[in-house]
């Protein structure tokens, strides 16, 4: 009898001590350590590629046969991109929701000017234009005349968007030209019909001339070339030049010091855990339509009593603001492009997750079925930071390259 009591106590204490000392007793799991060159090789072999450094390389890896780039088209497209008159109330341009700097390397002092001028209140753009994120940094986009997006959809970055196979959250668009047209026409965005666009463009003699210049390959009829179709083409041409290169690209090119050790661990996590399976290619995403969430945890946000008992709540691992359920309401979403992702918060289709760490945790749990540890999340976020980049200047190459015509 005493023996059993003794053994029970000893066992109890042993369990208690083990639990207390467990973290320090277990050996740290040894993950495969890649050398820098092995890591690069692994990444490149899985289809991860750097953004081209100059226009010659661009032509080698990117197929723009549908819209060949010329200096005139790109310049016209840029002008149209920042033009508010393409919206019904003349208040919204492409750059309103897809913010990028108009000028490179300026010291515009936008914030100082807006604070000290006699104008009314400023808006988020005064500070956030310098992000160069290609988004509006809002949870959901606001169109002409303050129109709210009916599904509370989050603006996707324009940067690197031309590399995607599918565009928009439901993945139904296949080219940036098509999307440009859809955005101009949508009543929630710029709300202009093709006829209205034609009218506005042709009332501006500068545009008539520029369109003529850019599209003089078309049959030289007397009809003005300043029309909706050519607007889409010009905008598309400009957007196709908006590719960004960052530390990650320099690493893939061969510079071992471009990214730090934590980011390298993050990259190997990205490859090994399976992230690269969907967020693939040079664009690190945008190439597939996948189901989200893949693994549905019942009421993980809300453990309140569930009656009648629901097997799955048809929702998301965050607030289902806006009620958008993907393509055909079937939870199919276009895989987002992760380049510059650390600049484009808030996250997911309805912008309801503000922090990148939380987004990574959700993706690990609901897409890969992995409960990522804090340090794994840190490493992945450190890697995602290396995907930030500056827009590459292809203008010299495009200017001198007349062969593409």
């Amino acid at each position, binding site marked *: *009898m*005493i023996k059993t*009591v*003794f053994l029970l*106590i000893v066992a*109890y*204490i042993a369990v*208690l*001590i083990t639990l*207390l*000392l467990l973290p320090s007793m277990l050996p740290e799991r040894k993950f495969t350590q890649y050398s820098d060159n092995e890591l690069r090789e692994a990444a490149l072999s899985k289809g991860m590629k750097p953004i081209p450094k100059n226009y010659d390389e661009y032509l080698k890896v990117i197929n723009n046969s549908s819209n060949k780039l010329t200096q005139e088209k790109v310049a016209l497209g840029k002008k149209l991109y920042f033009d508010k008159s393409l919206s019904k109330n003349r208040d919204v341009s492409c750059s309103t929701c897809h913010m990028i700097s108009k000028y490179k390397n300026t010291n515009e*002092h*936008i*914030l*100082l000017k*807006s*604070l*000290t001028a006699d*104008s*009314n*209140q*400023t808006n988020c753009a*005064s*500070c956030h234009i*310098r992000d160069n994120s290609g988004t509006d940094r*809002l*949870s*959901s986009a*606001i169109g002409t005349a303050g129109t709210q997006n009916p599904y509370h959809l989050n603006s996707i970055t324009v940067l690197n968007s031309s590399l995607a196979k599918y565009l928009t959250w439901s993945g139904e668009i296949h080219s940036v030209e098509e999307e440009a047209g859809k955005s101009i026409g949508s009543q929630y965005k710029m709300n202009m019909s093709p006829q209205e666009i034609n009218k506005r463009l042709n009332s501006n003699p500068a545009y008539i001339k520029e369109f003529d210049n850019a599209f003089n390959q078309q049959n030289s009829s007397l009809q003005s070339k300043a029309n909706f179709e050519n607007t889409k083409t010009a905008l598309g041409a400009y957007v196709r030049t908006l590719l960004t290169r960052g530390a990650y690209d320099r690493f893939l090119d061969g510079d071992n010091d471009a990214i730090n050790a934590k980011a390298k661990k993050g990259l190997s996590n990205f490859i090994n855990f399976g992230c690269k399976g969907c967020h693939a290619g040079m664009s690190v995403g945008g190439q597939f339509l996948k189901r989200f969430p893949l693994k549905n945890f019942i009421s993980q946000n809300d453990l309140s009593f569930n009656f009648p008992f629901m097997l799955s709540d048809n929702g998301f691992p965050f607030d289902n*603001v806006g009620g958008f359920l993907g393509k055909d309401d079937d939870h199919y979403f276009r895989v987002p492009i992760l380049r510059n992702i650390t600049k484009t918060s*808030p996250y997911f289709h309805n912008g309801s997750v*503000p*922090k990148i*760490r*939380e987004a990574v945790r959700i993706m690990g749990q609901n897409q890969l079925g992995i409960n990522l540890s*804090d340090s794994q999340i*840190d490493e992945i976020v450190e890697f995602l930071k290396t995907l930030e980049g500056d827009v590459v200047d292809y203008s010299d190459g495009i200017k001198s390259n007349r062969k593409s015509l």
Partner: protein
Amino acid sequence: MKMLAIKILIIFMFISGILISDFFKIEWGNFRDISVIHIFTSIFITIVFIVPFVNRHTHKYIIIEKVKDNNGWLLGFLLFSITISGFYLFFIGNRGGDLFDIIAFNTHLYGSLLFTVSLLVHINKKLFTTSAMALFFLLGIYPAQLHSIEFTKLKTGQKENIYHIRDWTNSTKCKTCHSEIFNQWANSNHKNLAQANPYYMVLEGLAGEIEGDDFREWCMGCHNPSGLTTGLKKSGHSMNDNFLKDLIFEKDAKTLIDNFKKHGPTRLEEGVGCIACHRITKAESFGNASYTVELNNRKKYHFEDSYSEFGQYLGEKLINANPTVHKQSYSKKIYKKSSYCASCHDESSPITGKKIVSTFKEWEASSYNNPKNLKKHKDCIDCHMTYLKNGKFSPKSGRSTNGGEIKKDIKVHYFSGSNHFLSGLKSKENEDQTIQLLKTAAKLDVDIKDNKVYVGVKNVGAGHHLPTGVADFRELWLDITLKESSGKVIFSSGKLKDDGDLKEDARLFRKVFGDKNGIPVGLLFWKYEKLLSDTRIPAGKRRVEVYKINKKLSYPLTITVKLNFRIYPQWVTNAVKKMYPQLPSPPVVELEKIEKNFHK
């Protein structure tokens, strides 16, 4: 046989308990492990073994065999007291100030000693003498007062100035036991230094735009150390869907508490939280965040860092049961010295090297800095963390911990200074403390001679210049109205224009910063290189402003002189309002007023 088992269990509980008492100075790592073992095994043993045993034992000997044994009754009483006090010590704790805590602790310690002796007597009377001697011996080495446990290793900070978000945890954790101080701090200016301070957010944004984003590190070192050390390049701000979350008016740190409930310690608390001050281990008076904050290099209790609610609960109970080490981790002597506050409250421009904020230096040169005469010596906290009542300093007696010891002069965390406005948008109590403090600062006197008005302002209450801190952005001025015999106003100065700014004739006490070309810097205060004017009033000094009246005076004259204060000039507020349209304009606060009649 059962008896022997019970005896062994009791001895085990006793030994594990005595090891963690002050008799043995065991090392912290072992201490916290044995605490947990003692607490949980004792609970287990008491419920599973002792209680049923005592039931059977007393039933057999009292009811059936009807044995009369006083010692037995004593044992029973002691066992009961020890059990009850033990449960009390875990679930409520031994925090230092509560009478019941102290009773429970002593009951448990001395009760268990007496119990062991009585148990030996109960078993075998011969053991009495030996055990009595052992007890006296043990009591003899018990120290008279509480001794401190030494910190073993002192580090000079880490190699890389990087912390993880969870290292900074969330100040809500402190709220459970330090609720009064938490509430004072939550509505104070110290909590609301980053995203809840619209003036700061605008200026950090400007600094980043004009000088480059790396420059923001200078600001963040004091205003957002948690953000800076966790890799943020700029201060963030919470959003409410598409709009800026309104934190200007938010009371009692609601968002912080909600974040903690939802995300535990993994959501970054930006700004200055509890441990941003209470884990500073070294501080120099130079300024620009000249302190060392060591978050991880301390003795941690078990379960203290737990992400789960139950784990946090256990952690709190363990701290409350033995709070000495907790107190030593967070309460250091340097916190009482002015040089500690100076590490943030003095400021130099990293670009020009000029001193922008020199509050500490002003205090150092004043008569309040008197290390030889401690009666006259006053540190920052003697004014800025002392309770004010009816316009006077009235040290409040209170506790800093719920159930802790009562202190005669509890250091309140309203952090009264001069910015009544931003804390006032959240709590009138906070604002009231600051306004009372402001009104202790100066005294006015006025005289009229030879067609001149002499107004004297004496800095009687402040331990530094008036104004101090961001003295280029504060407005402290004289508002004068001079009426002649008919009642007509013949002279005035220091009035506001229609647009809210002061008229040009106002006599302000302030600094005016100029850049290297002597042009006023405006909002870009870090460009300060040349001091264009300095009319501040040093501590204890009197400054006289002379106004010439170029009119024929018709006596008797009535003069009303007010010393007015506004926390920000209207043109600064106007700029900030462009970003934060819901921000109200700060009011003019009348600090002093005198009215005097003059006869020829």
